[in-house]
């Protein structure tokens, strides 16, 4: 951007309509941009100009409640045509505001609002006319549940905020709008419950968002990377959810939820490792079922990380720890396999990731073909060709299933990388290597924080908490908010409970 443009942006509107229109045309590159629209009109002889982006602004709303209203108002009381008069007496659009700085007006116009410039007036009226096409609220794609609400966030920030408000109809709910990105701004909303979320945590998150120094920020994924406590860590320190009910539950627990334009999910923080293992089903199902499912997920996580590494360690180094009958089966199964166990398991893991990734990218119509190919590669063909031993297929299949039981996608990928680390350590040093890897991972987890909150809290360090960490006991026993909520909320709820 040239220095001239910078100056133009920061300038205030002039009283000359022509001059203002020329400025906006220049800044919007109207000679090239065909969707930048400048609609001149007159009201009681005073010239006006509506500026909007075609497609972003709703034509119908603009013409019905703004342009027609301006043109048809010819009564004497509209003698003075200025921004106040337009807002108070003419425009029939609910949300209007005045603005006089060019940059402020332009930033709103590019998001779909419309501006009315008035000849002889140094102020413009900004009207909420956003009406760009967007996906309707639909079922979630990645976080489906058996029982419970089915709707998910969409790409529109406004819709997402509405969804969140619907689940948290409280006057304490604050939705604080921020903007990040120097050149292409990304609109972000911080949502939290005043008095429940810890003010320090909110302030910390706000400061981190505001301090993002990037020319462009593409959605919440990029924001997450900018503001996480340990960006080098394998596991995410913020919870991604595409479910408004889950985001609402986070807000009610005292967490802060981040929403952003064009991101069909929310980010919640602070979180702990245990949040990553919780799913929405847990809260909808009876406590016995929720607890059982959660334990299955924990087992899935442990199996996913350690089973292949343990298999390599035991079969390569510690045959004595395998019962002889099992050892015999493994040895027989491997008798014709040409690869060492490490190579065999890496081949299988790689094939598994490949099928997984291909399945994600493939159109639904040919997805079923992938299943056949996958089953052939991973199954009968590999065994028949003596490339893979059947027992390894079982190991990799159980491992994969364990990984799929993890509700959080990012967390699952982190675990996959951790699994590779454990496999390598197991191959290098056997059980000793697996112990070392487990120790390193544990210490790494214990050293992680999410918005300053220890990642393994409330277990280590111990903090007061509901019986809703690994086990989920009945709801009537869950009386206190999470330890990271504000002190006031914790005291009040404890007293109420």
């Amino acid at each position: 951007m040239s220095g001239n443009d910078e100056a133009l942006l920061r300038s205030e509107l002039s009283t000359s309509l022509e001059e203002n229109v020329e400025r906006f045309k220049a800044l919007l590159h109207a000679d090239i941009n065909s969707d930048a629209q400048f609609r001149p009109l007159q009201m009681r002889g005073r010239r006006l100009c509506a500026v909007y982006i075609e497609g972003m602004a709703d034509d119908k709303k603009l013409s019905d409640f703004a342009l027609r209203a301006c043109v048809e108002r010819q009564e004497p009381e509209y003698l003075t045509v200025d921004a106040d008069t337009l807002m108070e007496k003419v425009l029939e659009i609910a949300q209007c505001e005045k603005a006089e700085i060019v940059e402020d007006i332009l930033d709103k116009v590019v998001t779909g609002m419309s501006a009315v410039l008035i000849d002889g007036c140094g102020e413009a009226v900004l009207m909420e006319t956003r009406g760009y096409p967007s996906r309707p609220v639909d079922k979630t794609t990645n976080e489906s549940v058996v029982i419970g609400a089915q709707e998910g966030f969409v790409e529109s920030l406004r819709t997402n905020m509405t969804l969140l408000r619907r689940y948290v109809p409280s006057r304490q709910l604050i939705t604080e709008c921020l903007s990040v990105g120097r050149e292409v701004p990304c609109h972000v909303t911080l949502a939290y419950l005043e008095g429940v979320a810890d003010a320090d945590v909110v302030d910390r998150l706000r400061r981190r968002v505001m301090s993002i120094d990037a020319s462009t920020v593409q959605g919440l994924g990029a924001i997450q990377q900018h503001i996480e406590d340990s960006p080098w860590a394998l596991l995410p320190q913020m919870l991604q959810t595409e479910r408004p009910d889950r985001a609402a539950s986070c807000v009610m627990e005292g967490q802060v939820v981040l929403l952003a334009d064009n991101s069909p999910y929310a980010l919640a923080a602070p979180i702990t490792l245990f949040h990553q293992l919780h799913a929405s089903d847990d809260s909808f199902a009876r406590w016995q079922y929720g607890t059982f499912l959660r334990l299955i997920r924990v087992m899935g996580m442990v199996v996913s990380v350690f089973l292949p590494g343990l298999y390599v360690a035991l079969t390569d180094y510690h045959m004595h720890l395998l019962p002889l009958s099992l050892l015999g089966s493994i040895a027989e199964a491997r008798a014709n396999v040409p690869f060492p166990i490490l190579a065999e398991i890496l081949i299988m893991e790689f094939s598994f990731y490949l099928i997984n990734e291909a399945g994600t990218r493939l159109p639904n119509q040919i997805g079923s073909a992938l299943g056949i190919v996958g089953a052939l590669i991973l199954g009968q063909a590999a065994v028949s060709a003596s490339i893979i031993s059947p027992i390894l297929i079982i190991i990799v299949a159980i491992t994969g299933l364990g990984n799929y039981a993890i509700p959080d996608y990012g967390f699952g990928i982190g675990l996959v990388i951790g699994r590779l680390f454990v496999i390598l350590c197991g191959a290098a040093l056997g059980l000793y290597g697996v112990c070392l890897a487990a120790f390193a991972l544990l210490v790494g987890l214990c050293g992680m924080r999410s918005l300053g909150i220890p990642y393994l809290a409330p277990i280590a360090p111990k903090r007061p908490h509901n019986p809703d960490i690994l086990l989920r006991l009945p709801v009537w026993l869950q009386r206190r908010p999470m330890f990271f909520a504000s002190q006031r909320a914790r005291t009040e709820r404890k007293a109420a409970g």
Partner: protein
Amino acid sequence: MKLSISTRAARAAMFVAVTVRLFLGLAVELPTTHNGAWISALIGALLAAPWVVCVRYGRSSGLVLIALTALDAASVLASITRSTGYLALDRALPWVLTVPVAAAALWSVWRNGDAIGYAASIGARLALLLLVIVGLLQARAFRPAWLAPVLGSGWPSILEGGVRAAGWIAVSSSTLAVADGDDSPLSRLIPLAGGALAAALLLLLSGMITPTRLGGGWLNRLDDLLCNGRAPLYTQLPMIVVWFAGLLHLLAAQCFACAALVQRTANLNGKWIGAAVVAAILMVSRLPALNEAALWIARWGFLAAAIPVAATALLGGGDRKCASGD
């Protein structure tokens, strides 16, 4: 980077370190007390209690603690290597076995004290779970009759074991000397008592799985513990995990304490100090003379650690004063 640890994390690290160090010392390294080892563990805790209450960083006590902790950490590192060698990796080069442990210790020092303490508290819970599994799997193999004669080699031996245990406790609880903030004597004694009781319980359990034997080397004792053949070997898997994990937690706590003490003395970047301390411990662990040093620590470690701390306490006059050190 400042090497720091909260009192809560320091207590957790100390609990695990005391438990593991006492067990390693009394069951494997110097099992002369035989069945009386559990009494030695408790006597050691009693002897070390004033030390644990009083220990704070002071320049003179800090230097002694650095030396003792580093030597003991090297001895623990050597123990890990030897037991690993025993367990199916006997043909691997010693360096191959030692360097990864040192790397893990360095990683944990770099993650700082809280990570070590919190990891220890989780490790303790997991170990308890695994020990319960081992107990259930091997319930038929336990022979309470093997706990007789109750006093093992007799009172002189038990008392000597108690003094040695106190020395091990002194070096294993040095994390308390570098903990941030101040805590009450009671809160310092709880992990000590817990660690000593846990060690005593483990010693009793190990006494029930293997009978008192006269003679036998280090490997025999490890064999008795990890692969004694009295129960199906696959039931020993959790025990092996507990063994290695326990030693790793102990080593990490000792390396951290040593590095943090050095930082308080030299005031340098924690990352570099951590690397230097772990490298030094690694080198010392390969020295042939380490065994003698370890024996010396086992015999005199308590007095060597206690005298400067007591002197600091007396000069300072009282619990609060001993915090100020010199």
